[in-house]
């Protein structure tokens, strides 16, 4: 095995470990570790798709969690407001749908009184258990959320076409903030800060290979998230290796030069927004179904900084490094929770860990421009190339390159 094969082998081994892990691991903190892993995969999808957007295409967007939120809220609203019933309620807005009725529940928001319940609950009390209503399938909500993320990605991609660098960052930040404000303000529909609840990912449990998993079991969502992560990574690696990746990188290096050479910059800029925001939206929808609640605070700028930091520490120009970075950092953050004492001071690590993390982010940016994990991969895959480049660089006389 040549040295350049090592990262691929390591990657394969890592995937195998993740695939086998839930069956092998049997300690008491099993649900906790599984939860961290699922969250880690979720952040890995966000961080790697953000690194595709920022590192590959050079679009430093701060609205990535906004797309995540669109996916999650679409799934949540879909499962919250749409039901199928064999009998018309005659109170709700409803449409015949085959031999069933599609019921659209009226939004009532958060109310403390039991009197103003929504129309479906009223109908259910009238029927008194004689009619069985069906909630919408979860997967349909997830797909809808993903599509919605793509639609918004298209819109934002079109709007940010003329903007670069700082303006792009501010515009996307603005988009994310408007979205968050709108979600927390439209209480009747989104239930505002109270958050909206979602059904389980597999509400009636699931039977896999003859073994039944309860709806609260962590194993099915674990594999769903892992599968989604691998799918996203596969798509992104394929895109990065294809002509798309090359065009997108040309766009990052010099948009005008790329356009002059015949790259359809508009199309690729929009396309990269659509692809990455669909991934973020899908991750958001699945995660929302897993943790079963979504609140506007999930879209906060601090969450965005977490994603950015994960991608940067992992390596912003390498989607796989960003994903690994996200999983590692999620783990580190959870394991750093334990407080400890230095002399008379008690360090409350639940907060201090973020300080450590922020300092790490700044140091990584300052001293390790490609992150901490990407150079490791580079070292194995492109070690020989790097050596040659260094040789060329030392051969060029100093000072030929002026400061830009």
């Amino acid at each position: 095995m040549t040295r350049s094969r090592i990262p691929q082998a390591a990657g394969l081994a890592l995937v195998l470990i993740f695939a086998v892990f839930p069956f092998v691991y049997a300690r008491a903190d099993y649900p906790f570790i599984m939860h961290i892993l699922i969250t880690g995969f979720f952040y890995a999808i966000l961080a790697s798709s953000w690194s595709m957007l920022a590192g590959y295409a050079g679009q430093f967007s701060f609205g990535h969690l906004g797309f995540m939120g669109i996916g999650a809220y679409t799934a949540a609203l879909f499962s919250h407001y749409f039901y199928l019933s064999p009998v018309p309620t005659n109170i709700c807005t409803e449409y015949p749908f085959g031999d069933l009725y599609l019921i659209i529940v009226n939004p009532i928001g958060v109310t403390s009184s039991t009197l103003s319940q929504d129309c479906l609950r009223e109908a259910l009390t009238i029927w008194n258990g004689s009619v069985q209503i069906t909630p919408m399938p979860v997967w349909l909500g997830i797909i809808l959320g993903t599509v919605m993320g793509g639609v918004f990605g298209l819109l934002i991609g079109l709007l940010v076409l003329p903007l670069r660098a700082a303006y792009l960052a501010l515009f996307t930040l603005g988009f994310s903030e408007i979205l968050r404000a709108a979600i927390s303000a439209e209480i009747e529909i989104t239930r505002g800060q109270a958050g909206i609840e979602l059904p389980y990912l597999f509400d009636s449990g699931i039977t896999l290979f003859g073994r039944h998993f309860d709806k609260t079991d962590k194993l099915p969502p674990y594999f769903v998230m892992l599968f989604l992560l691998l799918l996203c990574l596969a798509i992104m690696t394929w895109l990065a290796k294809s002509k798309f990746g090359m065009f997108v990188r040309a766009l990052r290096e010099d948009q005008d030069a790329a356009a002059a050479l015949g790259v359809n910059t508009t199309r690729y800029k929009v396309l990269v927004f659509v692809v990455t925001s669909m991934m973020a939206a899908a991750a958001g929808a699945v995660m929302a179904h897993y943790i079963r609640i979504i609140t506007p605070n999930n879209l906060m700028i601090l969450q965005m900084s977490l994603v950015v930091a994960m991608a940067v520490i992992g390596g912003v120009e390498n989607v796989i490094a960003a994903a690994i970075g996200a999983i590692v950092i999620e783990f580190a953050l959870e394991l750093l929770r334990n407080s400890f004492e230095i002399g008379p001071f008690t360090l409350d690590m639940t907060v201090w860990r973020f300080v450590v993390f922020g300092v790490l982010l700044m140091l990584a940016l300052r001293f390790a421009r490609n992150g901490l994990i990407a150079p490791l991969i580079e070292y194995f895959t492109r070690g020989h190339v790097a050596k040659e480049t260094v040789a060329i660089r030392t051969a060029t006389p100093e000072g030929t390159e002026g400061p830009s």
Partner: protein
Amino acid sequence: MEFPYIFWWVFAWMIFWSVTGSIAARRSYMRRDLDTTNASFVGAMLGASTGPFGLVPLCMKTPNITTRMMVVPALASVGVLMIAFGFADPGNFCVSNGSFVASQIVNGLIIGIIYGFMALGLTLIFSILGVVSFAHGEFYMIGGMITYFLTSVWLPGINPIIAIALACLAAFVLGAVFERMFLTPMYEGKIDRPVEYGILVTFGLAFTLQYFVQATAGANPLKASRYFDFPRIRLPSSADPWLIKTSRGNMELFDTVSISNPRFTAAVMCIIVFGLLMLFLHRTWTGKALRAVSQDREAAAIAGINPDRMNMLAFALGGMIAALAGALLVQAFSWLPQVGAIPAMRSFVILVLGGLGSIPGAFVGGVIVGLFEAAGTGCLPDAQKAASYIPAYGMIILTLTLLLRPTGLFGRRFASGAHGQF
């Protein structure tokens, strides 16, 4: 709202024609090979205010765009929107109650001056370093925190002016040290994407500072006591004070407009410091050097100014200005480690609205944002909804500005350095 459909129909009509106008005007100017920089803005505003009646002549004749052609339709469309609102909701306080409107306007002005002052720091940083400091809100928070701890915990009874000065000094030093440690590689050409690097590293600083303060000071809301009391004034007479009436914590003008003391002192001090800063920027060698670097880096370097020094000074000064705004407002708002986020967003809005590195733009932009927010919070029929939308008002301005006129109000069209591009 009594007749919501009036408002929404007018609104939809305006949106439709402004979108059409911005596209059509740009197209027609492009077809005649004319300057299109402001065409979409004029098209949108003319479309919003006059509908097709103004748009058609614009697209047919494609006149040269003057400042008046931009200002008048913009004001007219705001006017149309206000009139529509007035007809749709005649019972609203904003329409029926003059004193409410007056006090909203005064409050908007005062808070706008403070925002504008804070955005001034960001403008300074942006015009010289070409970087949007995402840690601006955290400098604001630090300024308030240090002032609170100095006046209320560590040295109670200290003169608030000294406490504010110390807080400013701390922020200045923090800004200078951070700039030396983390922003220097930007100028040396070692980084291929300096602007993005600057954004990310200040983002990291923001994250670190916020959690550092949360870890050391806790997450409970803090509030400093009032710095100064108003003297007791009643004019024209103590029996009938229709002109001005003050108590220690409040001031009432014309029997209608009430201004709270903390906001008033904050605004006045902002204006004083703004004046001093203008003197500094226009009268001293260092200030002139700062402005020179913001206009043309290379030329300034040839003239014997060290641009790297100016970078450090600009970042530290910018941070200090934010800290001063925070130090002045800690007596008005309750203070949390997360408190910087909203003012930082407002500063971004003002930065973009005012124009690239434009100092008057920062102030005018601040006042506009302040008034817009006052209108938004005061006039929306559902008070709870209005409060929840507060963070969005500014962002709506920001997105509109970036879409229609990315140079902002007073932006230079051909700025030097990295911020020449949008």
